[in-house]
């Protein structure tokens, strides 16, 4: 998507005082990018632990529902940090991100993986009984891992598209 309304919006955003302040500072963008990467680290390791457990990869001493309750909060904590740091980066260079196919694909995959995470989280039994690892849940876990990989890849490719 690259229509004129979007490009007009980018042009408007680019000239707001906040955007000019971000562009004028050498440290702001790398600091926000580092914060963004730190939050991605927290989120990815949590997603990996949950999905590996659902797929029966690695340590099986805890049930899937226990592993979900240990790690899923990290995902919901990291997402607002990613949203804020990401938004600041967008305001600094709106056209580079908003009008970029890699960025747009990243957001679509993000919405999909959030929906998947919510549904994986929902099948967690409240009393800690083992989660039944049927094929549907495993499929969701595989999809989730693929989407997170895609999101990281698109994030890097924003710089090249």
């Amino acid at each position, binding site marked *: 998507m690259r229509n004129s309304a979007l490009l007009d919006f980018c042009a408007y955003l680019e000239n707001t005082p906040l955007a000019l302040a971000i562009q004028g500072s050498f440290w702001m*963008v790398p600091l926000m990018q580092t914060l963004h990467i730190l939050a991605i680290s927290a989120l990815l390791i949590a997603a990996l632990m949950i999905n590996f457990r659902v797929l029966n990869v690695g340590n099986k001493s805890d049930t899937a529902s226990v592993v979900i309750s240990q790690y899923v909060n990290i995902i919901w904590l990291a997402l607002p940090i990613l949203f804020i740091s990401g938004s600041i980066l967008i305001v600094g260079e709106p056209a580079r991100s908003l009008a970029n196919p890699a960025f747009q694909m990243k957001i679509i995959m993000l919405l999909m993986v959030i929906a998947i995470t919510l549904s994986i989280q929902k099948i967690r039994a409240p009393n800690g009984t083992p989660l039944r690892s049927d094929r549907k849940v495993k499929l969701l876990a595989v999809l989730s891992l693929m989407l997170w990989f895609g999101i990281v890849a698109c994030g890097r490719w924003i710089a090249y598209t």
Partner: protein
Amino acid sequence: MNDILILLYNSHLAQTVRENELLFPWIETFHVLAITLVFGSIALVDLRLIGIRALNRPISKISQELLPITWVAFLLATVTGTILFVSNALSYSQNFYFISKIIFLTLAGINMLCFQLVIGRNLEAWNHLQTLPYSARVSGAISLILWASILFCGRLIGFTLEPVLAIS
């Protein structure tokens, strides 16, 4: 030293990475993926050491379930990082933030050795503890700060790298 760097710069691998438009970003993508998993897994162990997260679980169990991921991811980060370095060895070796990153990596390695060999030699002994000994908490805090600095320096390389031409 410069001779070795020029040799690396002119190697077949370096030329391939430089000349192929897709190769460099893809190797970077795997490098980013690897370092996020390295940092994420180490940070969770550090947060338990410091006493911020998962206090009801023994540190021995947490490190046992996370450190295998750390090592696999660290291997991937080293391989991809080496290829990225070789593709432009002279520029990277003169970059302030690249040098800082390598120094911080070395310090993080020393900190880890101190923990593995001395401070946390017997993690099982702490199984019943919620708050760990002072030395363990400090070691965790140092590790967290060093790894965050490594990521920050890594990101800054992209903003400060200047082309250095190899004369061969």
